[in-house]
């Protein structure tokens, strides 16, 4: 079997679609309570002037802004679309490389099938792990805000306006 996928229009189509896909990655919101020393990730439901409404495994809960010492919005920068496309291209090319290489032995005996299963499962897991690790190397950006409700024109109000207006960051 010749490995001619690289030149096929199929892969070009996939690459073009991925190139134009959104590079956005969800930001996360972390909250430090006055009673705590650590930031804790919360799943935002919505932000109100007096309350921050979050989703918890037991239901929807609200945090009084007065009990919050600070919040920070963490944004992990995504890959540049070109780099992302290159990685996706490599990911699927590697899949087909493995498939073609192993299908030389098809039909598989039971031990061979287990081997094929392990190779795909293992390489997929390593690929996902490596992608996450590479992604982490991108610098995370934090917007930290100390809560000062009295300062109506301050950072708190701007952050609140941002959270209220930007439904994208709210829990779906």
């Amino acid at each position: 079997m010749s490995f001619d996928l690289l030149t096929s229009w199929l892969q070009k189509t996939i690459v073009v679609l991925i190139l134009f896909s959104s590079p956005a990655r969800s930001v996360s919101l972390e909250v430090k309570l006055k009673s705590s020393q650590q930031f804790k990730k919360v799943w935002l439901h919505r932000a109100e002037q007096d309350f921050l409404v979050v989703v918890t495994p037991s239901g929807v809960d609200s945090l009084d802004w007065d009990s919050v010492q600070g919040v920070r919005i963490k944004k992990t920068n995504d890959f540049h679309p070109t780099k992302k496309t290159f990685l996706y291209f490599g990911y699927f090319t590697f899949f087909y490389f493995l498939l073609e290489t192993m299908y030389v032995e098809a039909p598989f005996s039971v031990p061979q099938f287990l081997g094929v299963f392990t190779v795909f499962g293992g390489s997929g897991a390593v690929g996902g792990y490596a992608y996450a690790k590479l992604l982490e190397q991108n610098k995370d950006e934090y917007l930290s805000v100390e809560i000062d409700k009295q300062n109506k024109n301050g950072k708190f109000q701007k952050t609140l306006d941002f959270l209220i207006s930007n439904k994208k960051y709210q829990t779906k």
Partner: protein
Amino acid sequence: MCSVFIFLGSSLHAQTIYKKPGMVDFIKNIPSDISEYTKQTLCYENAQNIGAMTLGTGLLIYYDDKLLDVSNNIREQGGWSKQVDWYMEHIGDGYLQLYVGSSLIGYGFYNNDDRALQSASQIFESVFASGILVQLFKHVTGRESPFVATTPTGRWRPFPNQVDYHNHVPNYDAFPSGHVATITAMVVVLSENYPEHAFIKPLGFLAIALNGLGMMNTGVHWISDYPLGIALGYGLAKIAVKKGRVSKKNNNINNSFSIFPSINHRGNVGFSINYTL
């Protein structure tokens, strides 16, 4: 000093968070998935959909041989090789689903991301569940694949001898398509769990179409094998997705009214009045 906090909410969408899946949840859920799918499908309310799909499949069966020629013509006009058909066919053979699902596991473990882990679990769950139903249909319907067809649209041998089936699988295993069910299930799980990635649906639908085209060109399926395959993959993926979510529907927070005493960090005592629209 008393203070009263009035909290008005106005959300209309369901709240969703993802629970971490157990190691074998995807296997444990399969019997109930199939049971739920059967209940949801075989009900009076769904009669119109079943009728439409049966009629559609019947029409496609009638034109199967002609549509197979159309598919081959597309390949010839497109100028791609048989090897590309082979690639397209293997979009839905389960290895890609294993590869992508495992990648989500690797990613999910590194980032402690329950959504990725849950997506992987749901892909495996819906793929296995649809695989079971597909195999059941194949063993009952006994339809010939195009490349071994003895009639223009392939002979059907309902309830075939199972020994013959296993000795000559292509003579019996065309209907429905497990490949299409598998890729549909994966696309539905990913698009449901990652709605912010707008490319998943168009890319996924393209993958399903290419998979279908590739299998017609390699002679393993007729186009009429696809509607049931798509329905199985779609329905079982939806069920798996629903089970993997902790959904806080508005009905437990909406239109609720509560009053409770509160004390804030300054020592102010008051009442909190919550009314959620």
